[in-house]
């Protein structure tokens, strides 16, 4: 059934700020219908008042737009990667909820974009419901693995000679 069964997670204020930040590095990873992965920098990634991730796709025929379509059709996950200037990084997984292509919100996005770049277009204003957030900062992830799965490390790390 198409109706999305998503266990939405609430994003922390820190993650929301990072999603809104113009300085953060933002990457969107999707997969196509054959499972091939596709990742792009996507500066338009942000968050709306409902706590859902939003992004603007400017090209109707892009692989990203096709993959987002495939994801909304078949309830497949996409992944958003965020990194701030201090090196803190997060991965948010979610499922597209809507491809807004009409309506006041869409038209506002369209007007704002085309005022800056008259040649640009807005193929879709996508909304993604997050269902998993992972802190991906290296230091944090390393500590987590050392604590939860110490068997995975090399023996020489604890070797005292």
């Amino acid at each position, binding site marked *: *059934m198409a109706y999305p069964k998503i266990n939405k997670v609430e994003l922390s204020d820190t993650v929301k700020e990072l999603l809104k930040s113009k300085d953060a590095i933002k990457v969107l990873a999707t997969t196509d219908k054959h499972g091939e992965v596709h990742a792009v920098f996507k500066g338009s990634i942000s968050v709306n008042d409902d706590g859902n991730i939003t992004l603007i796709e400017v090209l109707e025929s892009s692989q990203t737009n096709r993959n987002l379509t*495939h994801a*909304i*059709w*078949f309830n497949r996950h996409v992944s958003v990667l965020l990194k701030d200037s201090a090196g803190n990084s997060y991965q948010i997984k979610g499922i597209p909820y809507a*491809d*807004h292509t*009409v309506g006041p919100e869409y038209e506002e996005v369209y*007007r704002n974009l085309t005022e800056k770049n008259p040649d640009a277009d807005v193929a879709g204003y996508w909304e993604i419901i997050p269902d998993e957030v992972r802190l991906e900062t290296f230091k944090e992830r390393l500590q987590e693995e050392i604590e939860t799965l110490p068997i995975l490390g090399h023996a020489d790390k604890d070797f005292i000679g």
Partner: protein
Amino acid sequence: MADTAELKLPNWRNEELSYNEILEKYPSVSPFVILKADILRRGFTLTEKAKEHFDDSIYINAINNSEKDFGAVITSESKAPVGLLLRDGTAIGCSTNQNEGIRDPYVIDYVDDKFVITDQGEQIEDVDFWRKPDYYGKLTSKGNPMETVLTARPRRLDVFSANKYCNFWGRGEGCKFCSLGPAARFYRNNPEAALADPDEIEEAVVEALKQKGRFTTICTTAGSITTGDKLFDDEVKMYSEIYTRIRRHFKGDELRFQYVASAFDKEQLIRLKEATGNIAFTTNLEVPTAELFEWICPGKAKDVGYEGWKQRLYDAVEVLGKGNVNTQIVAGADLVQPNGFKTENESVEAILKLTEELAQHDVGVVANVWGVVSTIIFKNFYPPSLEYYTKVFSGVNDIQQKYGILTYFDDYKRCGTHPSSDLLRD
């Protein structure tokens, strides 16, 4: 009085696979497009609560839409959307009376501050309606509401009343599935009155496009005009007058607005292209065999013929280019008895065979769900099963993709009538 279908199928739920069963059986076909096909097939109705929340200052109300003049959207409901919009952007152009009562319609309810599509109490999907554009309610210089000459889909402008009369219908040879042609009876004695004023269309288009971000394209269609120095010349003249006016408001040498017209010959297409710059052309074969064409579309068959119609499609590709020419099949009308296919599978095979043949000539095919209302000749028949439509739409799309015939002017965003071309985006 509403135009509704007369036939009822009381046991259809026991005889056909359900929406959920189709999703399980065809897991690679978009659930949204399958749902669209089923809504087109079964129709929909609104609960009282949904009607209360249907705000016709925001949404287009069928009762106010000019398409009713051309027979497509006639309803007795005071509040009736002209179309639905799904989460993925899929548009469903469907009035509440389409195929009404043949099978149980879907029910649109208002739950937790949103509209939802339900079936037997189960929530199937969220849904929105087609929004009213800014130009609705404004008047042309002749004092007519602009929506009477130019109607709006979610992302497309439609000039569907360019000519409300069809010469084929006028001489008793209209297409038997058609719900638009019967309106011709109002104009039989005065066909000139059926023609829209190109100046008013121009005014409405200019006003509509002031709403930034709303419209991607324009589509024009009309009843066939067989008169002129040669067959269809007066129809060519009509489109030429409309698009030469529209053209002067756009930069560039070419327009990619669509005209859904009669089968013009090569000379007419060249003439039209030079006059208007417009290159997106649709002319409909309607059914998958010559024998059915003669029975179901007698006027077209007599004046042009099935093979002649196909040849004109091939010629159109030469003039306008691959990806700019397609034809529509009214899937299901070819199953009407006594002359139609005896089984759904025979129809599917014939449609896909024709699609492949046309694809070899770079002609695109789109297929739709046949809508039955009481004014059509085939009023005592019904559209086939959801499984049939799933096979047709996915099969047609597969062939289009295989041959690279990407008629984007008829895709989900620009047209939205044909589930087969809605699948083009994956």
